């Protein structure tokens, strides 16, 4: 265990340094909180970065309306414990304002609609730095992301114009109207996140652990049964014990059949499965470049 802690400590030191730089270099930072394990880790690091002072920025949650109820319950409990301000903006409002159109059909999801709601929220509050829990090990185009990633007024990411990032020096200078996406846990892997959560004794939404659930079996994957999912004839409704490895919308996050209900069991299972966590994200499977294309358009 002491071995594990030594590299986790290095990662923690680096992340806390980044979070403090964000707070020092920007006027109006915010932490994008999804209720998933990565943003929970980020919340823990923020708490440690400023203790005994309170976390000096609000959390922003873009609520697709298709969240797991367990995640929302956990979110509300955590922000109360930490004493931070929670801002929630709803994709449903963007739909009602006709800014975005609900997708239709079997694979309809609100995942990509979030971008518009997020950009509107950034503009509404004048946020100049948005911290997120993205990690470079998650996906190929994320592997190319800087720690401070400058976005224009439209939230666009230009992979060819990224600023070089050298040593520990973070250049957060931006023009009015631009903002920065900051990724304090860029260098963490999924395994590091699980180890850290175990080490710190941080709580997680219950859906991460094995539980009995009503599911829809589609294309060989299990999706949570919910009112938000457009069912088709070939869908099969089943009930079994599963857990979720990553937490996105109910419509696009696949469950794993699993009995693992402790963190060591989960880590053991993840390791032996050899599959990556984003393998469970149906939205990434649309094409090889799905995530990069969404990011260019301002997706987180």
């Amino acid at each position: 265990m002491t071995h594990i802690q030594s590299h986790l400590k290095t990662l923690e030191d680096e992340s806390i340094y980044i979070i403090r730089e964000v707070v020092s270099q920007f006027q109006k930072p915010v932490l994008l909180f999804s209720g998933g394990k990565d943003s929970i880790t980020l919340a823990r690091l923020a708490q440690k970065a400023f203790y005994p002072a309170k976390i000096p920025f609000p959390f922003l949650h873009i609520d697709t309306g298709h969240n797991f109820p367990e995640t929302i319950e956990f979110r509300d409990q955590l922000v109360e414990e930490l004493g931070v301000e929670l801002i929630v903006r709803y994709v449903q409002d963007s739909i009602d304002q006709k800014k975005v159109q609900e997708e239709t059909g079997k694979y309809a999801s609100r995942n990509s609609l979030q971008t518009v709601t997020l950009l509107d929220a950034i503009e509404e509050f004048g946020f100049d730095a948005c911290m997120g829990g993205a990690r470079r090990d998650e996906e190929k185009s994320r592997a190319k992301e800087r720690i401070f990633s400058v976005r224009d007024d439209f939230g666009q990411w230009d992979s060819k114009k990224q600023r070089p990032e050298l040593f520990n020096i973070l250049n957060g200078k931006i023009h009015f109207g631009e903002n920065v996406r900051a990724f304090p846990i860029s260098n963490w892997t999924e395994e590091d996140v699980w180890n850290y959560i175990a080490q710190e004794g941080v709580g997680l939404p219950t859906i991460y652990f094995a539980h009995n659930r009503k599911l829809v079996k589609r294309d060989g994957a299990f999706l949570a049964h919910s009112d938000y999912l457009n069912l088709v004839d070939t869908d099969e409704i089943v009930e079994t014990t599963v857990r979720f490895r990553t937490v996105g919308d109910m419509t696009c996050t696949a469950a794993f059949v699993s009995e693992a209900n402790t963190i060591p069991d989960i880590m053991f299972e993840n390791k032996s499965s050899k599959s990556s966590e984003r393998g469970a994200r149906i939205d990434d499977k649309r094409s090889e470049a799905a995530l990069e294309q969404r990011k260019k358009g301002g997706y987180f």
Partner: protein
Amino acid sequence: MDLLRINTAGSVDDGKSTLIGRFLNDSNALTIEQEELIERKTKEKGLDDLDFSVITDGLIAEREQGITIDVAHIYFSSQKRKFIIADSPGHVEYTRNMVTGASNSEVSIILIDSRKGLLEQTYRHYFISNLLRLKTVVLCINKMDLVDYSEDTYLTIAAEINKMTSRFGYKPDIHILPISSLKGDNVVLHSDNMPWYSGQTLSEVLHNIKPGEAEVADFRFDVQQVLHVQNKEFTDYRAYAGRVISGSVSVGDEVTVLPSGIKSEVVELRRFTNTQQEVKTGESIQLRLKDDVDVSRGMILVKNEEESLLSKEISAKLVWLDEKQSVPGGRYLLQSGTRVVQCKLQQIEAVIPPENPEELHEATNLKLNDIAKVAIKTAAPAFLDAFENNRLNGAFILIDPQTNNTVGVGFSD
């Protein structure tokens, strides 16, 4: 488990991406999705050997052009060690990314095509590794399968390498390996095709490096932020949040605040709810002083005050990173750690061609990828150490105040 940061570099088509893919594959570290992608792409392209490059070339433009444009970070761990690999492009116009990748690494892997020997890029990359004072450089003579695994070829290239490295004053640990990423020789598994080579495989080299040995350097602490708390438990708590750039400090030590020169005693060192007696290089902590002295962001705490830290004349090596050229006497912002000061690029003393470092030439402007000896004048002290004594406190960037871009990286003399 410890963490080793590696940078890979090489010319276009030297097969860096293939090497990384091979390393992951033979270390049994690929995910099912990656394995499926490799198999699918190999079939689509009609290749005989597995195409590992598809897992690192992450951007659309890279797959279109078949080259690596930007630094990709690859993470994996073996039983013994965690690795972070920064895969930097070898293409000349993206050399700045190589500097970027190398700046956060302890080890550089440079690939050489056995059929071509040392190229301009090889000299450039070795020069950069040397400029950045990387502790270990591994030169992999790749594609040995295409020269019939010839020992003569290996020896000829190794001699060229030794000639190159002997030209520098600083000498890292150097390893020269004959490999084939495509066929898997000497990457993770020892090669049967080269019985004349009895040295280590790449994997063995990387596992045997002693990582993260804290540099023996003086105590430097950048103040990121002042925390002030007033509540029941913490009455009038005032602490300086920051990261120990180098060295160590203990409770009871006397420290000096720069630039004011005021001295005080460390009374508390805190990590979250724990207080500790001593903190070391790299730790993000909160530090409290006995006296209520004026300390704010941009100041630095040291144990031994050195005149040189307060200098406003910096002589340094500078790598130009921007498409826009430098202008004579141009004004920039100089950032080191959390400190930002205004500066003027006073003089370009000489441009150093990395492929031939002895042949200095003059220039009035610096272009993208130029490496030069320069003189910089700052409006306030930047508290820099000599880079060769203290990597983190000796490096700085230049920011163009109009575009806000990072336009240069410097290494203080």
